[in-house]
């Protein structure tokens, strides 16, 4: 899928040499100056984080009882939100690594934003398994470290796999993000003055744009892509095994790994679109983030939505086909039990709404896409809610059936997590170029030399 000529139409009017490109000015523009709406947004995000922090201190002090847990639902909104954010974090690596390996050039305009989103989503997600612990102060028990008491962790537990999967994913994402940033940091360094220049200088690691540096850089990106590609599949597979490895009806299913990965990519792309549309508009990056990019992402969404739809159907089919009453009841009650609303929201938002993307006009209609992706994010959150809460509330012993009701404390932490994510993203916007300048230039040159399509 090489970009059609129109995709980079503006870029075709590019100058002979990369350094004459307008990209440097356009893309670095958002990092310049002080705009009060920006600080208002940042301030709101920081306040949101602070309120969640206070609430979490309260929760840690008095106990997890302030969250909405009711027997038999021992996991609640925190784990739901954990899976949600981990899923969001998938688009970045997918775009950066897999699409890089497949030489899908259109990714260049969105990969920086997506990678940033990945890093921030992962650091958001990683908070949740920690703050849902009954004794946060014993967090280190989950980490295998040599100690005098010869205490070791249980490598059979999927939760431990989670620890490794998430930390690996987080480190690879950060490294990937940073390596990709180096040439752009160098551009920023060259355009900055004073303290900023000093900081950018350190971060740029002495980047001069020399041939050997570029060679090393592209090698690194290639190899990291190779490393990161299996991670896209493994992280969410491992997260899905938190559920699939258990014996809970509704969780104990072999489809979980691919189902979760598809869902993650689906949700991740939706989030990328949801963020990039306003970014493009606010920072006037229409030249770089074109309809073409959004259409491609829409196609991805359509594909993964359909995979999700298939997975939903397969789950129900297998529950019926298994002949196991526990499974059958669990799924029947998902659709028609106390949580029917969540289930139907999930199906409607994730499977039915995205089918509209078969219509080409809608794939490039940004307001529509923005709304659709908002609903997809909501739907994906509901998906995790449905999987976790409904399954736990209707297990084997009917006498122990119960409900779960979200508490204000949890809602406050949920809101705080969005603020936390936004805070990082807003800081990122102010500090680094949101679009990979060097890669855009590469495209421009490519377009100039080859006149668009091959």
């Amino acid at each position, binding site marked *: 899928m090489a970009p059609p000529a129109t995709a980079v139409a503006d870029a075709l009017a590019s100058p002979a040499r990369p350094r004459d490109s307008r990209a440097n000015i356009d893309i670095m523009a958002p990092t310049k100056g002080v705009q009060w709406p920006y600080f208002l947004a940042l301030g709101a995000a920081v306040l949101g984080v602070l309120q969640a922090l206070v609430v979490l201190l309260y929760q840690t002090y008095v106990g997890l009882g302030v969250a909405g847990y009711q027997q038999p639902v021992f996991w609640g909104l925190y784990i739901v939100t954990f899976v949600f954010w981990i899923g969001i974090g998938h688009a970045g690596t997918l775009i950066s690594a897999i699409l890089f390996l497949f030489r899908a050039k259109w990714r260049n305009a969105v990969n920086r934003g997506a990678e940033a989103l990945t890093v921030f989503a992962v650091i958001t997600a990683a908070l949740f398994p920690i703050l849902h*612990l009954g004794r946060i102060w014993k967090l280190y028990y989950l980490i295998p470290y040599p100690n005098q008491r010869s205490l070791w962790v249980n490598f*059979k537990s999927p939760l431990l796999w989670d620890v490794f999967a998430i930390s690996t994913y987080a480190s690879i994402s950060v490294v990937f993000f940073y390596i990709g940033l180096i040439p752009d940091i160098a551009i920023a360094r060259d355009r900055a003055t004073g303290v900023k220049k000093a900081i950018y200088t350190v971060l740029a690691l002495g980047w001069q744009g020399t041939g050997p540096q570029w060679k090393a850089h592209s090698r690194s990106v290639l190899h990291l892509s190779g490393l990161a590609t299996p991670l896209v599949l493994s992280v969410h597979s491992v997260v899905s095994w938190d559920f699939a490895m258990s014996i809970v009806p509704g969780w104990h299913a072999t489809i979980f790994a691919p189902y979760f990965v598809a869902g993650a990519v689906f949700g991740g792309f939706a989030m990328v679109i949801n963020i990039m549309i306003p970014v493009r508009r606010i920072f006037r990056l229409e030249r770089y983030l074109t309809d073409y990019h959004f259409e491609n992402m829409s196609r991805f969404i359509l594909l993964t939505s359909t995979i999700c739809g298939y997975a939903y159907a397969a789950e129900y089919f297998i529950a019926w086909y298994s002949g196991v009453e526990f499974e059958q009841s669990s799924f029947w009650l998902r659709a028609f039990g106390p949580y029917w609303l969540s289930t139907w929201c999930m199906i409607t938002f994730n499977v039915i709404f995205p089918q509209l993307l078969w219509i080409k006009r809608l794939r490039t209609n940004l307001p529509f896409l923005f709304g659709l992706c908002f609903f997809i994010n909501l739907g994906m959150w509901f998906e995790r809610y449905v999987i976790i809460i409904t399954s736990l509330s209707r297990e084997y012993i009917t006498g122990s059936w119960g409900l779960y009701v979200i508490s204000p404390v949890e809602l406050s932490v949920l809101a705080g997590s969005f603020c936390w994510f936004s805070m990082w993203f807003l800081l990122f916007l102010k500090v680094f170029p949101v679009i990979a300048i060097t890669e855009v230039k590469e495209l421009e040159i490519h377009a100039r030399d080859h006149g668009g399509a091959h």
Partner: protein
Amino acid sequence: MSELDRRDFLKLVGVGAGAAATACAEPVEKLVPYVEQPESVTPGIAVWYASTCTECPAACGLHVRTREGRPVKLEGNPDHPINQGKLCARGQAGLGRTYLPDRYPQPMLRGAGGELEATTWADATAQLQAGLQGGSGSTVVLGGRVGPSLDGVIDAFAAATGAQRVVYEPFAYEALRSGTQAVFGVASLPIFDPGKADLIVDLGSDFLSSGLSPTENARQYADARNVKTHKSGGTRMISFGPRLNLTTSSADQWLPSRAGSESAIAFAIAQAVVEAKGSPAGADAAGIQAFVAGGNLAKAASEAGLETSELTAVVEAVLHAKNPLILPPGIASTGSNATSTAAAVMLSNALLGAVGTSVSIPPAEASAPVGLAEIKALVADMNAGKVKALLVHDSNPVYSLPAELGFVEALGKVATVVSFASSKDETAELASLVLPDHTPMESWGDRAPRPGVRSIVQPTVRPLLDTQATGDTLLEAGRALGGVMPEGSFRSVVENNWSDVDWRGALALGGVFTDAAIAPVAIQGDFSGLGMKSSSIGGNGEYTLVAFPHHFLGDGRGAALPWLQEIPEPTTKLQWNSWVEMSFATAEKFGVGFGDVVSVTTPAGRIEGSVFPRGGIRDDTIAVPIGQGHSVGFYASMEGEGEHGGWSAGPEAAAGEPGKPRGANVMAVLPAAEDESGGRVWLSTRADVAKTGRFRRLALSQWTDNQRERKLAQVASLAQVAGHGGDDHHGGHHDEPPHTFTAAYDADPDQPYRWGMVIDNDRCNGCSACVASCSIENNVPVVGEAQAIQRRDMAWIRIEKYIGDGNQKGGSARRPVPDSEKLGELDVRYIPMPCQQCGAAPCEAVCPTLATYHNKEGLNGMIYNRCAGTRYCANNCVYKVRRFNYFDYGNENFPGLLGLMLNPDVTVRQQGVMEKCSFCVQRIEGARQLAKDEDRNIRDGEVQTACQQACPTNAITFGNLRDDGSKVVAEADEPERSYHLLQELNTRSAITYLAQVTRDENEGNH
């Protein structure tokens, strides 16, 4: 614990240990520090004392386990003939009275400001004497039943001061006493032995819950139905009553008779019995004929709302049974002609030959409680200013008397009201002087519940607070007023009363138990004023109001004990509050459902309560439990926690609202009605129901009684038990081979033990004694109503209640609906659910920190210190037996002295950790120490888990599955009944359940 610093604590421990060491000798009146360690007290080793339970008149024997001078656990005394080593939940929880936050720390005197203020004993005693001496009018001693020794002291005091003594018990069974007197000429309460009958007709006695001796009767009934020894299924029971109560749930047939029709049914049966058996020689045949003349099957059937054929069949069965027994109506069905009803029942029992086999009539009691008539007279005296001093002991009349009697107003006319209550109650809070008694754990005393049983109450701890035995207070006051009182302290009075026996031997054994035969009685038949009358239930309301004794709270005295509030009431699975039971049809009529608040209006008052709709109640009846609605008490009222404050409230919900009642006191709105003999009538009024539009959620521990054909609680027919009829999956018994694995192998092969358990569901009647025992043994915190509503109870064992096999419907509502009960249908299945200690435990594999692990003896250990609180284990536990410490229950939920009650052998769990049943591993380890010292293995039966130890019906057997000779292996060897719960999941559970047996009418001995 803030009131008690370390020094005081050590003093108490020292003093308690000193007292403990010398409890069998003269009390030592000095501190004994641990540097001079009492010879018989070794820190870490429990010392046991025999005593007697005072929670109800049954007087079960106790073994009190003390550690370092503190009683920490009550168990039944195996040598005691009544309970034979078992103890009900109420008895278990009675231990807590010593440690309750409600206790008066010292004497209290009503000051000028109208508040009770602390004072000294010298001052308080002077006040008492002044109150008794000055002024005109009489002195009245009002109180519940006490033992012979205290009876003697009170009587001596009454004689010395010219006081009148009124013995008052809310549940006094006046009608049964009067009815027995009418038939046999002896005013006493019959002793029933349901085990000696082969057919029981239960006219609403609820003898397994609130009867005269529930623990004893439960054992007798279960033993008589043991399918191992009775191939025919043993004793059968037909139960009458408007609602499915605990006893009915263990019956074989339920005839849902209209409330108030007990009398007609009793007379119909009596008439048929007299007709068939004739009158005995020497009895007034004509009088008997005339007495039962009103009995008529057809009329009774129409009054009861049953088919005549159903009643005829009952009568047929009674007449054909070898040893039939008719049980008279219990408290909830005591109607306006209760004495006649009881007389008719006792007459039938006599004619059927039950008296002498399954019923014995002991001699009349020395100080029997009075009826409502005498209380009315007392209130009139009080109002007339004839009473200058009222001394109230062991009783809470302000709470338990009908409000329309005006006892509270009359109390205001009495110059000196003295209460001897050790803990706050409604009466004591209105008294002018409180002279707190010791609690039963600190007291001397005795009980003589029946001929041949003399039981001792001995102190097991030095009084924790500045209290004084009521016996001593009265002795002192009597002497000060110049009366002739027994010599010495109350303790020596007790000892002198026992001077005819080996005192030390009696202390060690818990009493003197002989096989004193109860003299046979003959029918005297003085039925004057008695006879068949239709029940006259007053009021104009649409529904008959059944006020029934709460299984745990009794007449309300259990409400102060947190365990009794929190353990789910067995028939409804409701916790903490009062509720209004009504049928689904009635609820639908008012447009209300679970938790909707309705008002219940009787001619005597109005209460409100949340609706609990159920299938097991007649459409024309509503029922409200007796026992709640206290306005005083940390747990009994809302003092300990506020009204449920929403999800965010968390621990703030515990900010209490003193004075606000928890639930409603239905006793207050019952009219002050009397039966023929002046006894109190409980089934006396109709009530109007109205919707209030408010909603108050009830704490319900089990949201559905539908097991969806999952074969959780299985049944087997008698034919299946006998080994034939295997194809008949009547009731959904297992269709897989029950033994596809051997749990004995799920342990280290080098270990001699694999601990396991057998639970016989057929013996379980749902009484929940095991739950209380487990909670107290294992320091399981009580979480309070607000948390219980969020289903955060911490019970390590629970009793699930299912109705029938269930169906695939239901489970889709947001409100809980246990809706499988059907009027007149009985298929109630109780299944106790402790941790199954799986051989392949799902919880173990998923714990990231190995906080839960498999030990070498097959137990699923739980290392609290290692738990980080991921709660994955609880999600993955298929039996849902794991409990999480959402708050710091271990520190916060044992307020005041309650922390002293904790079992030192069991860790108190921290906030944020998971916990669960450990098979009482501390008891296993205790036995192991002993075995190790003697260089042997732990013997079979040496370890009893707390649940097993308490179970009145011996439904639970625990032991070593590796030992082929052990009882647990023998018990499990019932291939027709044994099954493992959810065996298809291959958790390799260490618990073998034995399916409940359905006793078909057409099988066995009928």
